[in-house]
């Protein structure tokens, strides 16, 4: 009977052996991403910066260039106009202005003229934005600490450190991507980063679980070989799950419409990055953190007796 095998059975990749290169590579990528985020910054959407978004259907085919100048001249800061779908459909974004919101909206509506259908109008004050950022950072930080504690209790403290290191790697790349390609960083981008994080931690824990199991089973095996064995044993599952999740996100990207697509793209990257980090960052990193193997001795350890 036909069966799809992404990874053939019984692979013996020496992943830990290449870990020096991979970890160096990952470190360089992290440094590059973080310096982009620090020096170039993120392309904050109006969710964070404050400003106005209009999604409109014009009654005629507009000249975007003219319209941009026209809206620019009313003095509400920088104007960005985007066409999507039909030529009459426009997405107009304006930066925060000092004027009152009602006045600003009225000015824009006057300038666009009559006959325009307003599909979506958003205004955000800049204060709300900065609160959103600080709340999100706080929530994510606490979530990371909680997961670190959980892994530390269930495995060993070193495992927790490695998992969180992999997570930070993922987050750095996601944020770096937003900065390098300048994708708009909005409220949903935080959700995308969170999804990536939860996928990645899930992936890492599965591999760690196998490493723990093998630590108990093969007490004499070299740590390097043991980690390699565990990675190879789980490789089929790792790729399969990444594939199904990617398929789901891909259909979001293709069919989900404009808003969801902008959300699906970073998640796609996130799943790839999260899978990479589970295999090439989290697990090889264990080599350098001095795991106490006697803790996994069945006769000494309480946790081992649960199995």
């Amino acid at each position, binding site marked *: 009977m036909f069966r799809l095998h992404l990874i053939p059975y019984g692979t013996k990749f020496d992943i830990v052996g290449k870990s020096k290169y991979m970890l160096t590579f990952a470190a360089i990528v992290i440094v590059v991403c973080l310096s982009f985020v620090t020096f170039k910054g993120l392309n904050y959407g109006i969710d964070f910066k404050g400003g106005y978004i209009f999604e409109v259907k014009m009654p005629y085919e507009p000249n975007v260039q003219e319209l941009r100048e026209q809206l620019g001249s009313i003095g509400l800061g920088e104007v960005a106009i985007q066409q999507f779908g039909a030529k009459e459909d426009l997405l107009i974004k304006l930066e925060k202005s000092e004027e009152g919101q009602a006045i600003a909206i009225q000015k824009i509506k006057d300038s666009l003229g009559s006959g325009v259908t307003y599909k979506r109008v958003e205004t955000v004050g800049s204060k709300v934005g900065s609160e959103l950022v600080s709340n999100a950072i706080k929530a994510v930080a606490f979530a990371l600490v*909680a997961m670190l504690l*959980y892994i530390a209790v269930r495995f060993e403290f070193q495992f927790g450190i490695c998992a969180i290191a992999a997570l930070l790697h993922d987050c750095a790349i996601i944020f770096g991507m937003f900065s390098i390609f300048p994708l708009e960083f909005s409220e949903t981008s935080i959700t995308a980063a969170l999804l990536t994080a*939860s996928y990645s931690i*899930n992936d890492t824990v*599965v591999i760690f679980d196998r490493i723990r199991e093998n630590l108990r089973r093969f007490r004499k095996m070299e740590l390097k070989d043991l980690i390699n064995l565990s990675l190879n044993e789980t490789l089929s599952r790792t790729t399969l799950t990444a594939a199904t999740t990617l398929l789901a996100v891909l259909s979001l990207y293709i069919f*989900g419409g404009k808003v969801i697509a902008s*959300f699906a793209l970073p998640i796609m990257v996130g799943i790839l990055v999260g899978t990479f980090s589970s295999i090439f960052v989290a697990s090889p990193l264990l080599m350098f953190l001095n795991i106490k193997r006697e803790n996994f001795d069945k006769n000494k350890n309480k946790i081992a007796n649960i199995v």
Partner: protein
Amino acid sequence: MLVVSKFRVFSTFVICLLGLTFALPSLVNQKTYNKLPGFLQHTVNLGLELRGGSHIQLEVDIKSVEKEHQESIVDEARKQLRKQNIRYNKIMVQQKDNSSIIFISLKNSEDASEAQKILSKIEKELEITVNGTEINAVISESFLENFSKRIVGESIEVIRRRIDESGTKEPTILRQGIDRIIVQLPGVEDPAEIKKLLGKTALLTFHGVDEEMESIPVREGAKVNLPSKPGVMYLPEERTKGLTVYVPIKKQISLTGKSLVDAQMNVDPQTGMPCVSIKFDSIEGTRKIAELSSKYLHKQFAMVLDGKVLSAPVFQAVLNNGSAQITGTFTMEEATDLALLLRAGSLPAPLNVVEERSVGPSLGADSIADGKNATIFAFVLVSLFMILSYGKFGAFSVVSLFCNIMLLFACLTLLGATLTLPGIAGIALTIGMAVDSNVLIYERIREEIRLGIKSSLAIAQGYKMAMMTIIDSNLTTLVGSIVLYEFGSGPIRGFAVTLALGTVISLFTTFSLTKSIIALWLRKRQNKEIII
């Protein structure tokens, strides 16, 4: 052998059936929905970006009210200090960093304790520090906290009343954080009108009622010609449902609600009937109500709010102590409502709009359609992939994947959670991630079979071995999402709910549903070889 008890199989199928039943109303079209029995007519709450409408976030300017309160304390203190012949250089509300304090500089330091007494008598919730001739006073933290709570609560009441009056259906008005209020108005595309309404600081006013003109009762729907007289206007008072009485009111404002400090439902000790006690502030209000009541003794006067007469009682006595009772033929409820209206008549603090989003219904409908398509497509792709990878076993997990989605919908419906656009994306993603547990188990079974174990035993072993891994990885996610929910806000919370639900449900479908199906299938197959 993989053994699943009969009870477990039975309860699993019952739960899945319940899930299907409660998910159904959200998935069928309007026509079928109307035919469903009443207990099933609950659908998933759609977020505003999906159903169309407006979302407004307001900030209550508590600082300005706090300052006003401090100013009134200073005014009163100034008077009392003069009365007691305590001489001072300065008495004022001072801005310091981000807060304001009451500052008094006395001529003689001997007066300090007396001045302190005066201050704490005016407002007992003051923290007063004396330093020689200088006195600093701030309103205590705990009082401020209660103070802002009360003000935000009152603001919400006023907002609700005004929005209800505007005829907007199903508004959601929520407190957010310390000083924020979120107003959600489904179906309102242009919130400009509502914002105008919320911007007004409606003021309660007291007017005399003209004695030469008569009140005119009007039934609902009937036309009415109101007589006119200079200086007099007819304003409507809704007495009972369907009956409005137009009361002739003198245009001149005798007293404003600003002087009203409290209004409470009460019981008239003489008649035992519900009434409303009102209390005016100690300085201006008391004096004015005394004047007003002696002028209109045994005559009618009216309380007017937003162009409507709230109540038009008769003064029975001269009111000297700043408090009064409004009696009439109130029911308990009416009296409570009136008290609330009087209390909440004018906005206690200015409101600033800090965020506003509105979505037209067509865009919302498009988003729902897109989300549906994406979800269906994700389901089909993942199903194909699973069947290609694991054959029959892949098909089993497709069944449980389907139940997974249905249960997720059912849980969202029953919990009253709101489905947002990222929420739909979350569901589609759950589809991708939910099969993970099955993949883990199947891979494990394959490993066991390769070790040469008999297939039926390998299945049981695979389940046993994968269990630990699945629990660890899912619990990590669960711990993370609970913390996110606890500390996050808005969209992060919504995401955390979907994620946590998805995790728990996928645990259930893996260990109950897929396992039951496989066990039942195995029993039929007896001991034949199994290819996975």
